[in-house]
């Protein structure tokens, strides 16, 4: 069956590899440079960007972690993003399930109301939202930020899990009903476990979205002790002048990038399946 590869084919293959390698370098070089810079002292970063560190300054990481406060920012982020993620997955799945499996008046209205929130940019709501939180005493609290994160990740969660719950088998649902399981038990013990693949992709997207969030904490979380990572890194990088601790800044950037990047490399097979499943309906 196999035919000899002709010269044109080989040329295409070489050209493909060249272009792809150039792109891969464009991705990897800034990351590698960031990593090596995180191990230099601030002065040699400015002088010779390409040289490998002469002395490996692991103390940059110690400073980033303690003095600069990455430990605290990371802790705050884990509390806020972690809690919000768990909450929005539970609440979003519950709403999606009710809207997908029960027929009642107002069902379609509620569904479109939720879709609407996915359509408008956050910037439309952000100024009134600031005052909603201020007036309810939630401004600058973990609870306030968590509830806002939940509310803004909720439309996306409902939207994608809705189509997922629609596809689940009606027979199994009826069997559970016949066995005398109530609505609560049917959901938690029968339907939710069946929705696991859908839940996983949506959870990954919600995690990346909330981890990425910068506008909401900037407006709603003004207390420096409660900064999430994006705020902490911003306040550090936006300082001007000669006393910027570049070594520490690069170390903080590496600490922020590394965990998610490593998790991606380890789980990339499952993740890429989830990415295409999540975005393509």
């Amino acid at each position, binding site marked *: 069956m196999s035919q000899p590869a002709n010269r044109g084919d080989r040329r295409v293959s070489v050209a493909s590899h060249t272009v*792809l390698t150039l792109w891969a370098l464009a991705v990897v070089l800034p990351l590698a440079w960031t990593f090596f810079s995180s191990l230099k002292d601030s002065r040699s970063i400015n002088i*010779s960007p390409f040289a490998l560190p002469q002395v490996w300054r692991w103390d940059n990481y110690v400073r980033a972690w303690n003095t600069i406060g990455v430990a605290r920012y990371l802790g705050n982020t884990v509390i806020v993003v972690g809690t919000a993620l768990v909450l929005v997955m539970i609440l979003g799945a519950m709403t999606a399930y009710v809207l997908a499996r029960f027929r009642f008046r107002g069902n379609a209205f509620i569904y479109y109301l939720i879709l609407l929130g996915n359509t408008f940019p956050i910037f439309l709501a952000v100024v*009134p939202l600031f005052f909603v939180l201020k007036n309810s005493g939630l401004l600058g609290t973990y609870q306030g930020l968590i509830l806002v994160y939940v509310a803004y990740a909720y439309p996306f969660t409902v939207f994608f899990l809705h189509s997922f719950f629609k596809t689940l088998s009606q027979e199994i649902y009826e069997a559970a009903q016949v066995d005398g399981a109530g609505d609560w038990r049917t959901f938690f013990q029968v339907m939710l476990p069946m929705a696991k693949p859908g839940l996983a992709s949506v959870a990954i997207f919600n995690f990346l979205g909330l981890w990425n969030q910068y506008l909401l904490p900037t407006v709603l979380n003004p207390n420096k002790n409660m900064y999430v990572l994006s705020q902490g890194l911003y306040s550090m990088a936006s300082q001007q002048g000669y006393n910027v601790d570049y070594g520490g800044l690069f170390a903080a950037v590496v600490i922020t990038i590394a965990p998610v990047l490593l998790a991606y490399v380890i789980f990339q097979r499952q993740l*890429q399946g989830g990415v295409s499943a999540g975005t393509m309906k």
Partner: protein
Amino acid sequence: MRGRNLERISFFAVFLGLPLALYVFFVVSPILQAFYYSLTDWSGYDANPGFIGMTNYANLLHDNLFWTALRNNAVLAVVLPVVTIVLALALATLVTVGGSSRGQTRGVTGAGVYRVVSFFPYTIPAIVTGILWQQVYSPQGGLLNGFLSAIGFDNLANTPWLGDPHLALGAIIVAIVWSFVGFYMVLFVAAIKGIPAEIYEASRLDGAGSLRTAVQITVPLIRDNINTAVVYMAILGLDAFTYMAILAPTGGPNNQALVVTQYLYSNFTTAKYGYAIAMGVVLALVTLLVSIGVLVSSRKQEVEL
């Protein structure tokens, strides 16, 4: 049956009532308030802002800074989707069908590695991408200028990429494209893999070259995915707030990289709430129009096929 009814009521209250209350309180009510407050002169902590009709919108029409910002957003909303998608599509094509065509049509060897590496930037938060490129572009020891001087372009090696009014916006576009190409490449790869191999075989037997195959076969068959990408990247271009916060603080040189979201935010921090909210409404309408526009034009394309 009484217990069953009670159970169902509690079920609906918790499953629908509770999350909806949260959603209405934090999302729907601020949006509705926004439409009202954009018609007021709300500023400071005035409890009862006065109703001034369309005055804020009329002022926006005469606000040069707002138009500068809107123009920059328009540039971003056009250039970001085009560049990102063309690059992502080219890379996805090379990875899936760019290999030596001995026997079956297939991708290059090591396709998986390229795909995984390209996705790296998407796992990095926007603000960190901003910081990374702020350092890459830095005139003092930045990676780009170091690289340029290493390959002999010493005359370019002192360029202040983010400080030059002609270069700032372009430099920022490069940074944003860098962080999204891999994501859309992965999506397109998945879509292209869904195309039956026979179609590519047939096209090759007909003597179509690689470029023609990509343009005339791949693009129409994954048009839905491309449209999704256009909408998302255009919406990103209309926002761009997080990247600008680092790469063009206060709008960049001569406001050449100022975007509406930044201008809105600075009006918010100076307590011109009504005016800031009116900008938010305009931005929301533009966003809606763009999404609808892409949707409608994609429908037309389907009919033509």
